[in-house]
């Protein structure tokens, strides 16, 4: 699993996740959120276009990210979620808490407002 960071503003970062987001790889994402918050980032958009598989452990990492950003006074949302990941969100009812946008741009501007 790879993470690519695209800052769009000093306090707003896009995190591109590539590969599987599961029990083996979720810790990396959790650590990334903590690092970002430590560097003053409050808003995070997670770009899921390249996520091949998402399970409950991956969802835990996203939820952890959401809590971290909220505690920092900001928010977190998701972009370009593929069908398998959408299924996971839906089954756990987390799609009501983790908001999903079709494109990265839409997700980013949703957080800017």
């Amino acid at each position, binding site marked *: 699993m790879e993470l690519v960071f695209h800052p769009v503003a000093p306090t707003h970062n896009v995190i591109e996740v590539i590969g599987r987001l*599961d*029990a*083996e790889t979720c810790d990396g994402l*959790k650590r990334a959120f903590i690092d970002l918050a430590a560097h003053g980032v409050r808003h995070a958009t997670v770009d899921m276009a390249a996520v091949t*598989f998402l*399970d*409950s*452990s991956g*969802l*835990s*990492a996203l*939820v*952890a990210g*959401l*809590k971290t950003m*909220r505690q920092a006074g900001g928010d977190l949302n998701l972009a370009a979620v593929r*069908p*398998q990941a959408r*299924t*996971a969100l839906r*089954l*756990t*009812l*987390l799609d*009501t*808490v983790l908001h999903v946008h079709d494109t990265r741009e839409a997700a980013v501007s949703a957080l800017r407002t």
Partner: protein
Amino acid sequence: MLLDDSQVPLGPADVDRLVGQTLAALEPLCGVPLQFVRTPPETALPHQPVVTDGRTFGWVVWPDGRTYPANADAALSAAARVLGLTLAEQVVNRGLADEVLNAWDQLSFLYQVLRLSTTSLTIDQLAARLSALAMAAFACDNAFIVVRTGDGWVTASANGLADDDRLQWLELIKSEPDGVVVRNEGPRAFLGGRAPLATGGEAAFGLLGPAGGEWRARDRQLIEGLLAQIAMLLDGVVLQTRASADARMRQEIEIAAQIQATLQPGRLPQPPGYEFAGMVVPAAQVGGDFYDVREAGEGRIMALMGDVAGKGIPAAMLTSLVRAELRSQAAAQPSPRWALARANQALFPDLERLDTFATAVLVSLDPASGRLELASAGHTATLYWQARTRTAAELPSTGLPLGVTGEVRLGEQVLMMGPGDILVLYSDGVTEVEDSSGRLLGATGLEDVLCATEAASADVILGAISQAVDAHRGGAPMRDDLAALVIKRNGQGLMGRCRSFVLPATYASLRQLEPVVAEVLGSLAERVGLDTWLDETALAMAEHLSNIVRHAYGGESGLISGLIGLQGDRLVIETVDRGANVFDVLRLSGEPPPIPSLDQLPTEGGLGLPLIRAVMDTLHYERQLPGRNSWRLTRRLPGVQ
């Protein structure tokens, strides 16, 4: 040839001839024929010694009865000096000639040694020839050779050598750091050396000179060269012997394997309501394990499995014999215990003579009633899985193995196979397979497989047993033959299309199961709109397996056995693991939780179980003795209400 410097290499006849010729030539100068004597003259006649190289050959004497002049001594001295020079020259020439002959002998020996490399000799023959040749070429009293190879020792000597003497010379050779000994002191001169063999081991070579003889520096050089040659020769013979032995053995094994292959059971009878599936996997090309299933008259089915002790071709040959005898007895005798006892009687002489034994288990099944009789001559316990109780019983041996005593008395076990019951005959190679820590798969490992796959057909169950052996063994090589025979009485709820698995409980190895749900659905999966159903089911299965890894095994190593298949209108996932009983069974009942508030959301796991429950229609958990978790998850197939 020994050259002894203390001896003049001229015989008396040669000396007389030379002296006679020289003195005759001097006569005109002296005027008289001077005489030559070997012993000092006692007369008062003038005489002078003939000296060469500090050694006195004899004396020149004025002939008796002749008057001698005043310068007689001077003339005698001159004559003596001439004689001395002539003789000295002859000695040198003869010495040179001898050396040429000597060199010729040794070259000739080397040539003979080289020629030996083109013949096909055994090491014993080679050693004998070398020592005989050496003794002749070096004109010594005895020559010996000692060769140590990976296979043992070979010694040879040209003239007979007592063991003590040989040991003494070997000690001497060993004591020399550079491997060559030249020893001229003592009762006999000794020249010897040793050289290592490239194929392993070494050769030692010794020449025993005649008493009073001496070896020279030149001989030492020759021995060094010779040792290298001899070592090469011996290496060649060793390699040749090994290569041909290997080739012969490979050929024999090929033939034996072909014979064994033709004796495989082939298609097994499948009486209505029952399924038979068996396999034999020899560890090497030929093995001692076998099984057979045959119709035995009156609708009965006879099944047997055996294991002949020992490996390789002798065991394989005996296997054919034992199998044939068991077959014929099983067909002839009404009950397994009598069949095994009679087979033992017939086989005992052969087994005893070859100092080996065989274990065997024989089963007689009446398909109509389900009545099964079993007798076992020392074979690994048979596993009997009862569908009603979902437990396994071990049916142990009922008597001694075949070939231990001439008369054997065996007990018999009788049981009634009910619907869904499974009997597994297997060899100890299955349950005694070891993992990297030396733990055995054991009968409990086999039971796990049966628990997970009991709903499937006999050949799927057999395949799962093979998967269990592979998964437990990891990458380690197979050391023992594998044999297993599954007998299943069909029950309700037979699995349709299905896939079994036995895998280590790691995320990495379980990933390979992700496409299995789609595979099992087959053409159904290609229907439009199935993607979501497949994603959900695959995700639920992944969550379930992750839970076993993380919570049941807690990251420790272990195996997960399972079955994914179609049963009626449902997809069924069965798993078995030996992890801890950490699941709160109560959590499985009740409604799915409402939408959690942000605070209540877990960030460390805990989302898996609700997800599984949201997808699967039924979720069943059973904790079994001894320490087994058995799960069954089902979901109605799409398009079914």
